[in-house]
Every structure is written in C-alpha cells, then in structure tokens.
C-alpha cells in the first residue's frame, strides 16, 4: 500500500501530481506538488522521494553507503555524485553496501531528483567519518518520514542485486544510464522502446520500467496490478483515462470520453507529472501525447508483474514487458 508523507485525496485508488517548486504559486488544479512515499511491503518495501522542498533534504551529502540498492534520477537541473554529473533524465543505480559520493544537487533550496531506496530500512547513511556519522544520525532521528522504520545495522546481510535488460555494465558498484539515448533498449510491437531494471531484494525487489513511447502508439489498455505503482513522465506527455467501468474499462462512447459526461476522461500528465496507483486498483488506459512520452514506472514488488487486463492476462506491449522481466528474474536466480 502506498502511504504518503502528507495528505492527498485518493480517487479510485490513484492520485496524480506534478513535481513543482512549492515556494512558487501553485495552481489550484488538485494535483500534488511532489511526493514522499512508502510503497509495497509494509516492513521492507521501497521509499520514494520526488519533490522540491528545501527543508527536508540537505544540499550535500558526504561519502556514505546504504544498506539497500538505490536509484536516483536528475529532474530538471543536474545532480552530481562523486565525479559524475547527471542531467535531466539520467540516472544512477547504486549497489547496497558500497560507498559513494559526495553527492550534491544544484537546486539552491532542495532536491531535484527522484530518489528511491529499494528497502526503506536501508535509508540510513553509513559514513566513514565518526563525527559526520553523529551529525547524520541526529538528522535521521528528526526525519518524520522514517517514523516506525527500523534501520538495518551496518553489518546486516543485504541480499540485493541489480540487473538490467539493456546491457549497461556495473562499474563496479553502480550503473549509469538514462532516457537521453534509448536506442539500446528493446523494441516492442507498438514501436515503443523499453528498458527494465531489477534492484533490491533478489526475489521480491523493485522493478523499474523505462518507456520511450512514440507519438501515435496505440493506447496501453486498462490494467490491474497486484502491487503498488508509481508512474513518472520524464519527457513528453501522456493521457491516462479514468477506468469508470466495473472491469476497469473507460466505457464511454470511445475510450477517451467519460460515459457520464461525454467529456475527455482522465488526466493529461506532462513533463514531471506522476501517478501513484494503489495495489489491486484499476489503472485506466493510457496513450502517449503528441510528442510521445518517456516514462519511469516503479513497481514495488516485481513478482506482481505483469498486470492483468479486463479480458485476462495482459497482451501486446504489457505482455512483452512480462517477458523482459521474466528474463531478469531468471538471471537473478542463476546468479544466486
């Protein structure tokens, strides 16, 4: 179950938002302005932060490690980790138990990245310097987003692994990739390109699906997934319909209009727009906007993939993603 730090009004199991600077006037459009959330397993599921809010995150972090695999992607302005700079849409997958940093993000007041910790119990940073560790521990104790989470100790065994479908090499404790160049990703039947990444626990960890959907690609049908889903538009836009039929169908005169009002149903998510979708609820059909869409999907527990459609098992591109994920799972099992 997705739980948000902060309040939101859920509608049919989902809530929509856009990552925007809350210091500036925020339009009264009913959308969240960023989100810090827990998802998946109530004890060891992921935690995700995507917001611009200066008081929650420091601008810089010294060299440290986490007891969890993690994922971070620059949104808007670049971020820096060690000697590497990441532009908008570029991301870094970092292995658990490996030191990295220092890291800093360039927005002067807060974070401008999506940060995912595959296991929320690994959020505590472990530093090499005892003095800095004490400062970090103090800050952590004041972090309300971590209430009730028992952090893993430094010597805990963390059975995490990172694998990807597009051949990016682990070098040797992290992977750099991004949405800038998607030519190495798998081509799906509708012309979309897809990259899949497994991280976190070897069996029940997170699945990331990176989509590059061209303009005019057929709509992905409505579906229901047995785990929580976060969907973020990195570039372009997409329209997600409202599944107001009992089986998740849009059920209007056509799939883009409401059966009740006849008006366009659902929501148009632009750059940095996101959807949070609760486990087991219907997600409406979706299609890319006029310039296509590049999207990141975060699936809390990869064992729940693929989703089911109104007519049964997923078909088309969603079914193809199932094959990609099965291949990753197989590689993880072989490596273990």
């Amino acid at each position, binding site marked *: 179950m997705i739980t948000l730090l902060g309040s939101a009004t859920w509608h049919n199991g989902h809530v929509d938002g856009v990552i925007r600077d809350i210091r500036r006037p925020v339009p009264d459009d009913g959308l969240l302005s960023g989100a810090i959330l827990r998802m998946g397993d109530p004890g060891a599921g992921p935690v995700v932060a995507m917001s611009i809010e200066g008081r929650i995150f420091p601008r810089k972090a010294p060299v440290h490690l986490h007891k969890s695999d993690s994922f971070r992607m620059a949104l808007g302005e670049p971020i820096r980790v060690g000697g590497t700079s990441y532009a908008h849409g570029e991301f870094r997958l970092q292995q658990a138990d490996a030191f990295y940093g220092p890291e*800093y993000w360039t927005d002067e007041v807060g974070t401008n990245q999506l940060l995912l910790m595959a296991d929320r119990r690994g959020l505590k940073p472990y*530093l*090499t310097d005892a003095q800095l560790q004490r400062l970090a521990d103090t800050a952590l104790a004041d972090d309300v987003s971590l209430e009730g989470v028992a952090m893993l100790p430094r010597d805990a065994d963390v059975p995490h692994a990172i694998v990807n479908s597009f051949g990016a090499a682990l070098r040797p404790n992290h992977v750099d990739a991004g949405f800038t160049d998607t030519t190495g990703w798998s081509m799906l039947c509708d012309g979309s390109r897809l990259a899949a990444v497994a991280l976190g626990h070897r069996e029940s960890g997170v699945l990331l699906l990176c989509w590059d959907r061209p303009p005019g690609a057929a709509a992905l049908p409505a579906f229901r997934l047995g785990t929580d889903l976060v969907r973020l538009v990195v570039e372009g836009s997409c329209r997600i319909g409202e599944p107001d039929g009992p089986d998740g169908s849009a059920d209007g005169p056509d799939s883009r209009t409401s059966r009740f009002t006849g008006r366009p149903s659902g929501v148009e998510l632009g750059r940095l727009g996101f959807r949070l979708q609760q486990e087991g609820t219907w997600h409406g059909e979706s299609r890319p906007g006029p310039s296509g869409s590049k999207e990141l999907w975060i699936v809390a527990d990869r064992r729940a993939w693929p989703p089911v459609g109104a007519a049964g098992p997923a078909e088309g591109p969603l079914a193809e993603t199932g094959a990609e994920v099965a291949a990753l799972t197989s590689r993880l099992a072989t490596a273990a």
Partner: protein
Amino acid sequence: MTAGDNPAGVGAVGTVGVIGAGVIGSGIAQAVAVAGGAVVCVDTSAAARERARRQLVEGRFGLRAAVERGKLAAADVDRVATRIAWESELSAVAGATVVIEAVPEDLALKVRVFRELDRAAAASAVLATNSSGFPVGALAATTDRPTRVLGWHWSSPAQIMRFAEIVVTEHTDPDAVETVTRLAHGLGKNPIIVRDAPMAWGYVANRVYWAAVAEARRIVAEGVSTERDVDQLLVDCFRWPVGPFTMIQGATAGWT
C-alpha cells in the same frame, strides 16, 4: 640527466609502493624509478602488469622515448627498469615508506584498498591516494592511521607532468606532508598543498576543470560549436596543450 642523478635524493626516501599498474600507476612507477627510487608496483592482473612492463620501455612516454628526447641515457634504460618490482600481492609493499594508490576511480574499490593497505603497509608508512577528487578524509577514516593518509593527485602522463596536488585533511601529520612533498620535488614535480573538502568532489584542479568541461559540453549540445573546434579554440586562445575533449580522451584511454 642520468637516471638516479637527482640532488634531492629520491632514493633516500625509501621504497615507494604503487598500487595499480594502469596508465597512471605505471607512469608513477616510472617517474620514481627514473629519479633513482626503488618501486614496488602491485596489480592483481597479470595482463596489466605485463602491459605496464612493456609500456615502461616501449610506450609513447616510456624509457626509449625518453632516450630519444635526450632525457635519459640509453645505457640507463635497463637500470631504471630493474628498479621496479612488479608484484601481485599487497603484502609486497610492507617495506615501503610511501604507498601511492592508483586504482580505478571507484570509491568503494578505493575504500577496500585502503583498508587492506592499512594492514599490509608499515605502521609509519604514508598512504597517498591518487584519486581525482574523492574526499581524502573519507578514505583516511577507513584506516587506523588517518594522520598518515593524504591525497597526491597526479595528472597524465604521470612521468611527464609536473602537476602534484597534495590534499591534506585537518588530521594529516605535517611529517607525512613533508615526506611526500620532498619526494614530489625529488621527482621534478611542483607540489601544491590544498585542503580536503568532505562535501565536494575534485579538490581544486578538477573542480575548476570540470566546470569548464560542463560549459564546453553545453556549447556542443546547443549546436554552437563542435568538440573539435572547442578544443582548437582553447588551444589557440589560452595556449592549452590540448582542449577539454581531447584531455578527457587522453586521461581515460591513455596518451599512446
């Protein structure tokens, strides 16, 4: 100059350990050996050791090239080469006075190496990292001798460039700094001491350089110019030996 004919007496510093026989590590080993010092160069890869041994003599900046440029007497080639012992185990640096780590720029790897070096090297030995920018304090804190750990940032080709950025933390023992700066002077380098910054990557040289590279990349991305032309403009305007894009290529792939 004859190899070993160095007024600063590099040999008096004692054996120098070098960890990593890549482009930089082998260049450092060569610089010390040419100046008359004894070197133990450790790399777990037999292929890397063999490649380094070959490059030492035949490489673009190797000993034979130094002879051709009049920097080394032909009769000294073998003598210099034998000053370097190529080893596969860290324990080989047990007798070294200064150990310079030059493994790939991966923080987790460097942390592991420093932990192992701390056990393998003599308690009094100075451990120096050739990191391009990772905070030295973070590495020092992984050892039981933080006062004997400092940064010695080299540039490529190490056997040629005078650059020596010595990075010290608030805990670094002045004696360790003195040992390393004396050695650097003896190698013909120009050591400059800078402070470690725990929250920043790049010390001084790389922070300034990568800021320039970032702007150069933006210029190319905006279609204002090409990598080749940006390089040429900076060479012509500021008398840089090479432009930023060529520098990246050379620093990562070597200058052969």
